């Protein structure tokens, strides 16, 4: 009896799962393995012209990468993006979640929808809008700054301000998602503990530090680590807004890979970059599992 039930389940399971697993194998597993293979060849435009030009180069692509100044620049830019962006994004999400969580705020669903709206819209259209908002002369941001007496900033033309400019846009775009995640986490903070702390005379900051923060800690860290992985994959914003400039100050690892791969057709080199990106994100995820285990969350 149990045997045939299991056999039936087995058959049904394969009917249910096989199609999507097959697609995953075709468009994900296979190309990833191919990427590994490509990264040890010198596939370039010469190979596109003539297959016999293709050669195995082992770690040659990786060595070339290490000697390419733009690659290091891209790594540095990406690190700055993540290093500045994650606190900005997570901080904004947390602050807004706390704000919305306050008991005195009315019409919460309305505000939630308004603050979440940027997240659902696409990257290209909003990047185009923000390119205009950040315009030095005609943009809304510099106009608003001028109202409070700040001189106009050359957001997208000055290499020192280009990364903060893009981060302003990215923060605006993504903070809604984690705001919702933190809202859910805040709702799970044990109410009795809060009441007890309040009765004991603890101030708002102390309550936050000793009751709220430990309760949402795991969620906070998980969101931060996932956020880092997201920032490591920044591409569309530099592509639409700055073309990697000015002075290559917004070239990210993925932008570098795209240019190398599709603009110059150095697929061998580009696959090596993809592999490096993979290792970076793997590192981030390992950190995540380690932190998760420490908080006994996983």
């Amino acid at each position, binding site marked *: 009896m149990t045997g045939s039930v299991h056999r039936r389940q087995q058959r049904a399971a394969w009917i249910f799962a096989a199609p999507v697993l097959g697609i995953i194998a075709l468009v994900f597993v296979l190309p990833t393995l191919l990427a590994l293979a490509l990264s040890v060849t*010198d596939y*370039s*435009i*010469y190979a*596109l*012209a003539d297959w016999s*030009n293709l050669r195995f180069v082992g770690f040659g692509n990786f060595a*070339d990468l290490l*000697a*390419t*100044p733009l690659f290091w620049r891209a790594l540095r830019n990406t690190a700055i993006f993540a290093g500045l962006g994650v606190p900005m994004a997570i901080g904004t999400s947390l602050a807004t979640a706390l704000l919305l969580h306050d008991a005195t705020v009315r019409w919460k669903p309305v505000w939630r929808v308004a603050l979440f709206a940027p997240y659902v819209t696409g990257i290209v259209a909003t990047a185009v809008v923000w390119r205009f908002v950040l*315009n*030095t*002369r*005609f943009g809304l941001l510099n106009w608003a700054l001028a109202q409070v007496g700040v001189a106009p900033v*050359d957001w*997208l*033309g000055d*290499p020192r301000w280009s990364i903060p400019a893009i981060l302003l846009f990215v923060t605006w775009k993504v903070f809604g998602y984690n705001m919702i995640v933190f809202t859910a986490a805040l709702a799970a903070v044990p109410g009795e503990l809060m009441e007890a702390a309040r009765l004991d005379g603890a101030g708002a900051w102390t309550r936050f530090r000793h009751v709220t923060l430990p309760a949402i800690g795991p969620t906070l860290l998980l969101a931060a680590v996932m956020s880092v992985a997201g920032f490591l994959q920044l591409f569309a914003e530099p592509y639409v807004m*700055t*073309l990697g*400039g*000015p*002075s*290559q100050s917004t070239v990210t690892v993925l932008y570098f890979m795209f240019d190398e791969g*599709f*603009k*110059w*057709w150095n697929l061998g080199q580009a696959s090596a970059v993809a592999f490096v990106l993979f290792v970076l994100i793997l590192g981030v995820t390992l950190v995540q599992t380690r932190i998760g285990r420490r908080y006994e969350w996983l």
Partner: protein
Amino acid sequence: MGGRAHDPRTTRRSLIAMGAGGLTAAALATTGCLRRHDPAALTFWGTGYEGDYSPHLAAAFTTATGIPVETQSLPGTAAHEKFLTAHAGGSLPDVMMLPSGWVAEFAMIGAVAPLPDPALATDTFHGVMRPLTFAGVPHAIPWSVGSQVQFYRRDLLGEVGYDAAPLTWDGWRDVGAKLKRRHPDRFAILMFLNWWDTLITFAGQAGAYPLRDRDTRGDFRNPRYREALAFYVSLFADGYAPGVSSNEIQDPLAAFAQGYFALYPSGPTLLTDLHRRAAEIAPDRWGTARMPGPNGPGRVSAINNSIAVSATTPRPREAWALARHLTSAASELTFQRMIGSLPARRSAWTSPQLADPLLRPFAAQMELPAELPIIVEWERIRLEVQIVAERVVRGGLTIDEGLAAMDARVDAILARRRELVAAGRIA
């Protein structure tokens, strides 16, 4: 959310059903009335103004032959990757406009077909066909020649004692200094840090060829190139030119018209813009002259475009007919009227519409393009050299460090070519 009169599951289900149904209906409806890609039409891809206005020329072709043509205008900054991925994916258009520097590269990878009849490309200027020839066979027809000249403000130069634009580097520096003294908050020369044409012009003027050893190594440290780079950097260092990239000056023509710049190196299409916006700057206030060289005018950067036919087009005869039409003298003159691009066809230059004195500097430069390497990697080298030049201008590198960086970078880019040349696999 208040209570509901209905069972929530039914409401949800009907909502889902409606949503899915509505979306599917909308999708089918939209695609149903979409203008479908006409299989009988020839496809043509162009960039820039030529791409935008090619429908006009295509219309004339359709009227004459009855073959419909569909044109697509690609953004110039994305054209290289679009063409490459289209070739790799087998979806190149029948006919395409390529900057001349790309033709050899595309011929090597088998994307463009050789000319069926060499006579298609004989009626042109010396030096224009060289980049379009691969393995001894021409692979594209020259379409337009856009040499760089200087547009200058007669009135502003008159104020500082010049009745014509200076044709030497010393003259440019003199004008720059004088203008700067008169109007310290303005500039003299409009050059963008992310545009490579002016530096190439200076290198051409100085007679510096950028590569050596059969185009497998950089030669940027030779004294002639050094001279060109030093002059280029000095213009920024002394404040005669603003150290900005093209997206910081939204409207360069307006800046030129308002007198913020007195010298504006540019190509022939600027003529059309200036004529169109004559209200902002009257025609008698500006003129054109050849670009200055160390000892007078010489070779300049030229942005030449050519027409090529895909090697995999299913209809080569019609595609070549379209190519022939687009590069006919009549079409090229039409374009000159519409957008200012100058014909590559020598016989078109006898037309009275090209007798305008403003076009004389262009005509003089047609025969003198800067000698540039015809290799696959040149596009990339050009961009990277300009990036290093930008860093030198912004103060991150000295001139010698910059030249060394250029050589190092170019040697790295050419590594593969070096190996293939050494193995005798390419010329």
